[in-house]
């Protein structure tokens, strides 16, 4: 069995790695926006240099990146989902510690456990409900979706996939972004469970 310290290190690596990976989404959004602005300014320059009708023909490709807002939204959104586990493991969520000195060590550690438990429950609720963004609920049928998934009944799985939804401007399919979001929430839930374990262990062991 892995020691607690090993698990802790693995979890930190997982959460940190995911956050950095997601952070690339921020960098992507930045690069994309800057490129779009440069292209737009260039386009305006060209339009100013040449009469309006010819301008279209001059370097047709020089125009702002279409759907820039959507790409920024998805880049930043992925970064935010990926940030959830890291914020959790680093105790980033604000608490009001006004009464902490009054409570005494043992009670405080119990409250720490309660706080982590609350976050883990929320992560679990989001994980299990957000699932239905990706897959439709079976209407008026009790057949088990997971049954179909594990028995390899691909057609049932494919039918339930919400692959119809698209972004407004670019028409990008949205289901991959749902999947990424769900995956990040799954890691968030896992890390939150670890944090429950961590504070339970601190409560059990006592000490300062």
């Amino acid at each position, binding site marked *: 069995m892995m020691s607690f310290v090993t698990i802790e290190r693995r979890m930190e690596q997982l959460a940190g790695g995911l956050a950095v990976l997601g952070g690339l989404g921020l960098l992507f959004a930045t690069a994309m926006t800057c490129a779009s602005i440069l292209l737009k300014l260039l386009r305006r320059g060209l339009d100013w240099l040449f009469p309006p009708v010819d301008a279209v023909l001059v370097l047709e490709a020089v125009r*702002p990146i279409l759907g820039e807002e959507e790409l920024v939204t998805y880049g930043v959104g992925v970064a935010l989902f990926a940030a959830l586990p890291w914020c959790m493991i680093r105790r980033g969520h604000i608490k009001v510690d006004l009464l902490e000195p009054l409570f005494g060590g043992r009670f405080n550690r119990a409250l720490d456990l309660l706080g982590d438990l609350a976050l883990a429950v929320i992560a679990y609720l989001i994980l299990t409900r957000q699932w239905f963004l990706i897959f439709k609920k079976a*209407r008026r049928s009790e057949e088990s979706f997971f049954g179909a998934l594990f028995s390899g009944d691909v057609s049932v799985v494919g039918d339930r996939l919400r692959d119809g*939804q698209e972004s407004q401007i670019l028409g990008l399919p949205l289901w991959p972004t749902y999947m990424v979001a769900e995956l990040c929430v799954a890691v968030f839930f896992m890390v939150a469970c670890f944090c429950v374990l961590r504070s339970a262990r601190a409560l059990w062991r006592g000490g300062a």
Partner: protein
Amino acid sequence: QDVTLRVHHFLPERASLHAQLLVPLAERLDEASEGRIKLELFPAMSLGGRPGDLYDQAVDGAVDIVLTLPGYTAGRFNQTEVFELPFMMRDARATASAFWDLIESELQDGEYDETQILGGWVHGPGVIHSSKPVEKLEDLAGMELRGPTRVITDLLGEFGATPVGMPLPSIPENLSKGVIQGAVVPWEVVPSIKLQELVSNHTEVTGDEALYTATFVLAMNLDAYDDMPDELRDILDAETGKAFSADAGAAMAEWDAPSREISSGNNIIQLSAEEVARWKAAAQPVYDRWIARAEGEGFDGAAAIETARGLIESNM
């Protein structure tokens, strides 16, 4: 037993669709059922979520009824989109009736099978509002325009303009700073975003067909609908449906007139018949792409266009 239905939508309380369509509907239902059907209206997304989540809120039964635009969930209501194609819409009442007919005959059991549709209609003819006059097709070249729906975004791109997507309330700021040089919306919303003060040119398409329109639906959760006592459901059915949809379309077109009046000091351009013919010809690739797309979605796009045209004609 009495029924209280929670109605959720994205429009502010002062919007005509809320004040002049939903509020009167609530009053009519209250009267017809002698107080046994109550509509609780929650405007402006006050129960949370984004406008794009509304349809699913009705599907999941989070609320009982939603007023939404199928276009908010792009890619999901592809057959509905036929009414949003350029130069498809004619009279708003007739087009709304045609949309309802299609819902009844095909869409209710097709792409709307997750809800009960109570009404479906369209808004008045779309108009181009721009800082520089648009008198011919070439005037659109290079212009950054806010496009309302996916099809029209495609159309503007086809015409050489740069379509920009943004929510309605962002239009004034972006216009005043020159981020966009115009927006494509029906007359009705013009005063609410002070468009008549920000641009001085409005381009209308003359002739039978409008440049474009967007579709609206009033959708109800299936369980909530099924669970209503029969006599109350009959009342609900009687107060909604085809007549309600046609009236909603006609009302939206009527709300255009006062807004157009407010803007009458501006340069209102009416495209000549020859110019409109050029625009229609230039729009052909949009049709072709839509038909090709329809094939991927598993229906015959060309036939759908013919059906929609026929339905509009029969409701004229």
